């Protein structure tokens, strides 16, 4: 069961008038009960693929809006737009993607601090690939 299917099942349960639901498959089992917030004692087995403890939260990333070469700076001899630790305003350029000799500016989605630059200068960035991680502030 994929996570999406899991969410669908929970939604289905919520829409229903069921009090409990227990489901067990070969490599997977789940128990749902309604309201109260009291989880059944003794703990339902954790569904496969779903982490019990909260996953280490990854910071949000700016992703490549198109495939192209990733550049950290406006020119090789210029300082980078957004080095690690830089405080960046929403809408400020954080890097460039070059495709067919056209430079596209990639903008910060919010005020943030740059946590990591994920690609080397000049490297290929695929569509949707994370480029920089940031912490909103």
């Amino acid at each position: 069961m994929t996570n999406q299917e899991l969410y669908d099942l929970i939604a289905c349960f919520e829409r229903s008038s069921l009090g409990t639901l227990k489901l067990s498959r070969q490599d997977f089992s789940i128990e749902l009960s309604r309201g109260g917030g009291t989880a059944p004692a003794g703990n339902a087995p954790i569904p496969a693929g779903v982490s019990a403890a909260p996953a280490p939260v990854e910071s949000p990333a700016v992703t490549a809006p198109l495939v192209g070469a990733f550049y950290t700076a406006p020119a090789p001899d210029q300082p980078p737009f957004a080095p690690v630790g830089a405080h960046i305003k929403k809408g400020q350029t954080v890097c460039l993607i070059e495709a067919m000799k056209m430079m596209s500016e990639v903008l910060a989605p919010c005020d943030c601090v740059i946590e990591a630059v994920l690609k080397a200068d000049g490297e290929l960035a695929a569509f949707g690939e994370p480029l920089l991680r940031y912490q909103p502030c």
Partner: protein
Amino acid sequence: MLKRVLIANRGEIALRILRACRELDMETVAVYSTADAEALHVQLATRSVCIGPAKAAESYLNQDALLTAARLTGCDAVHPGYGFLSENADFADACKAAGLVFIGPSGDAIRMAGSKSAARDRMKAAGVPVTPGSEGAVNTVEDALRAAEAVGYPVLLKASAGGGGRGIRRCNSLSELPAAYAEAKAEATACFGDGEMYLEKLVLHPRHIEFQILADRFGHTLHLGDRDCSVQRRNQKLIEEAPAKCLTPALREAMGAAAVRAAQAVGYEGAGTVEFLLDADGQHFYFMEMNTRIQVEHGVTELVTGVDLVREQLRIASGLALDFTQEQVLMAGHAIECRINAEDPAKNFQPCPGEVAFLHFPGGAGVRVDSCLYQGCALSPYYDSMAAKLLVHAPTRLEAIRKMRRCLEEFTLEGFPTNAELSYQILYHPVFVRGGCTTAFLDERLPELLDFSRRVAACEEDV
């Protein structure tokens, strides 16, 4: 030889190209949309790059993304496959301008073959038979009536700039022509901004016979024999064979020579196909169009000739000469292909994408499968519904038919409906077994075939 090829396509043809590259020790770069991240060829390629979202216009049709990916991954060539940008002359030119070998003919050759009326004129000049019709445009109803009388009804009125079935009208008699002329001209003006019309005799109950072409840069243009692709539903081919049962050796030779002239007339390079209509009399053939790419059904030609066409494309694009002559091309045995599509014939062929819950392909002697499916993968709703190509090769046509029946019995796909059962019914239909299918066969016999499938299903439920 080329070193690294960008495969600008998806699905089974992307895998087909990857295999040919791998066997020539060429590296491969797979490009994919977000919908195809789990595709088989993406996992097998030397390198894979996501080039855009699921929508083809923003990924597989996105020339900038493809050229950027090719440049940044160090490719020296682009293979366009079929569909998508494979017959886009501007893309061929853009590849060339970017210093990449476009694995196909020049942009100009694509343009010439692509323009219907220009191709018709050029073919006539090259001595390739075209459907009888008007000399050039018919600019008035009177011109059209005269031309129609000369060739005989029924006729087709066609927009010179036409395509996709627009700006075309059939006239069965003189009385229908004036109104049809006005309608078609108006539609052509509206659709293409160009109301110029020409007229052709309509070939009734034709067969679709096509010839495979290979041409290198050194002036060698060969054909690799014929295919019969008459089993079509609304111009979508379903079952293809090589060779065509209906051709006599003399006619095959004449058509093959005409196909070679057609390719030479547009300065062709690479693999291509010249399509003909063969009249119901089995004697007269007419140039229909030239497809400037590898075709879905190329495998049946490979099976009977033993020539790997995609390999030849890669060698030609590497600047090598063909290393065999027309006389050395021999056709042995008979090959049949069935296209397996994720569609439900009982529901008007509604596409049925889904996840492959169980998959077993037929195997054994004389069987070839080209497919990018694997158990657990999803067949995406964003692109065409072809799931697999099953091909067989046997000494005779009847043995090939029996082998294909056996293959369709073995083939098992759970997760979504396919047209496999329909193909199975066709393989038992007396008209098909006799080799008597014209392009009208499937559309005419579909109710009968579907009814038979329903009765088989009902029997099985009873058991």
